[in-house]
């Protein structure tokens, strides 16, 4: 998948979100970092959902964010996506600070996300669902945003072809004209993944990609994640320890909104704090993962 440099941040077509991105490069650790989360704190009323969270995502890695329910994993995703504005702390994308970025700018930045609840468009066919994910390649001015990719029939065909190619890649092209509601859950999950992949993202955020999958489907997912790492960067929130240990290069453990451990699967597995907070209740965790 050709990913990088097709959408250099400085290109004039990206002007509409330039306000969200500080153009001054950061001095430290910008060379080998795709996404940096620095000291992010989020409070919902009296509840501290995230406290001083640090996260560094290097390109071409698979990073797992784990932790018990309510640890703040999804909140962290929502901060990265711009749905939740942190009370303090900063986000840096490719060394540039993201200021007040909005969800609709994500696609242009090269960030795609799947949702825990999938979020497929019920009244759109599978193919149409995936085609909405290809927006990154549309122009960004008001007119272009109205008409789509310059509005020409050729672009419309391109969009369709790219969406079909991704569906084929994920073995779900045969249901392209079906409505998502009529499909088994595992297939719907692939459609959601296809919709995230069709934009050829530089960063793919997966919210519980393994929940509800059979063990065969899980094996397939492992293979797919390893294949994805060849071309992009993946961050996943997951309950299934088995999956996380098998595919992740790095694991971040959250507990009560704080990062309690970071490192390779081996290191995290051996960390006494983690054992205490999470792995000690592994059976409990499995149960919750099924829920």
């Amino acid at each position: 998948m050709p990913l990088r440099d097709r959408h250099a941040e400085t290109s004039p077509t990206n002007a509409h979100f330039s306000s969200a991105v500080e153009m001054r490069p950061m001095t430290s650790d910008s060379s080998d970092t795709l996404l940096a989360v620095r000291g992010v704190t989020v409070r919902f009323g009296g509840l501290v959902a995230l406290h001083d969270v640090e996260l560094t995502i290097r390109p071409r890695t698979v990073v797992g964010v784990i932790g018990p329910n309510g640890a703040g994993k999804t909140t962290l995703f929502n901060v990265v996506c711009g749905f939740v504005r942190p009370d303090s702390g900063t986000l840096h994308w490719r060394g540039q600070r993201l200021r007040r970025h909005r969800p609709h700018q994500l696609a242009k930045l090269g960030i795609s996300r799947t949702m825990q609840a999938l979020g497929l468009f019920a009244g759109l066919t599978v193919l149409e669902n995936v085609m909405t994910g290809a927006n990154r390649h549309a122009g960004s001015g008001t007119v272009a945003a109205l008409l789509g990719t310059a509005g020409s029939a050729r672009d419309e065909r391109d969009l369709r072809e790219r969406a079909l190619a991704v569906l084929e890649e994920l073995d779900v092209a045969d249901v392209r004209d079906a409505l998502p509601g009529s499909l088994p859950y595992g297939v719907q999950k692939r459609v959601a993944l296809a919709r995230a992949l069709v934009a050829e993202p530089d960063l793919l955020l997966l919210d519980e990609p393994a929940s509800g999958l059979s063990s065969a489907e899980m094996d397939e997912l492992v293979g797919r994640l390893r294949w994805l790492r060849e071309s992009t960067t993946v961050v996943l929130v997951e309950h299934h320890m088995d999956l996380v240990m098998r595919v992740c290069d790095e694991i971040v453990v959250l507990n009560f909104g704080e990062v309690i451990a970071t490192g390779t699967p081996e290191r995290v597995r051996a960390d006494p704090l983690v054992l205490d907070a999470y792995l000690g209740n592994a059976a409990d965790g499995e149960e919750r993962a099924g829920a």
Partner: protein
Amino acid sequence: MNTIWHLVLNGISSGAVYAALGLSLVIIYRATRVVNFAQPALALISAYLAYATTKATGSYWLGFAVALLAGTLLGVLVERLLIRRVSRRSELSSIIVTLGLLLVLQAVAGMIWSNEPHAFGYAFDFRGRFSATDLFAVSAVLVTAAGVLLLFKFTPLGLRMRAAAFRPEVAKMLGVRVGLMLTAGWGLAALVGSLAGMLAIPPFISPNVLDKVFVFALTAAVLGGLDNPVGTIVGGFALGIGLSCISGLVGPELVPLAALAVLVLVLAVRPSGLFGRTIARRV
């Protein structure tokens, strides 16, 4: 037999207007769950502007173009300046704002152009059974409806408008500018609405001229399913033919009663419309 045929033809031409005005309601309802009660007023103002233009220049078609343009612009402005401000609170707030706007705009029209009816010309010759004007109305509505349906089904804009309607939060994340899609939807709806106005208003324009047409259009939309553009177009024509037959065979005084009966019956028996899909959405 001849009478029936005559009534059906009559019904087709008035049904075209109900279909178009109903379609303009459906476009907005689908995107925002709001029934735009201000739609007839937007069409009314654009028709008054057409009336003024035609009076000044003598050209019916220049007035026609002004009406469509002004209608679109009014739709865009209403969404940007009014609806966007209140829509966050609840759908009901938006609906009440459109109701208020209806009253205000009708009053403004009365203040500017007076409440007296003014002569308002037809596009073509209106004499005879299924006149040139009737033919124009039916074909203009069919072409417009086909255009709207093709736009929704086969263009990137339509795809994004539908995506934004189903799940605005997810659509945003995929790079769809949901606010812009809503504005586009209001503009498109008001464009179709002002076409309906131009077809429905002759021979006389006055501030309340579209009230009855609006009730019938709303009935058509409910009949076809407020969610369903094709159903609404079919519903519009069916209602037009049905009401025309009732008017001719039973009596014109029963027409509004019949429309209300249809409305109540459909809402009681099939609230999602005769052709609507029964999906629970966005509760």
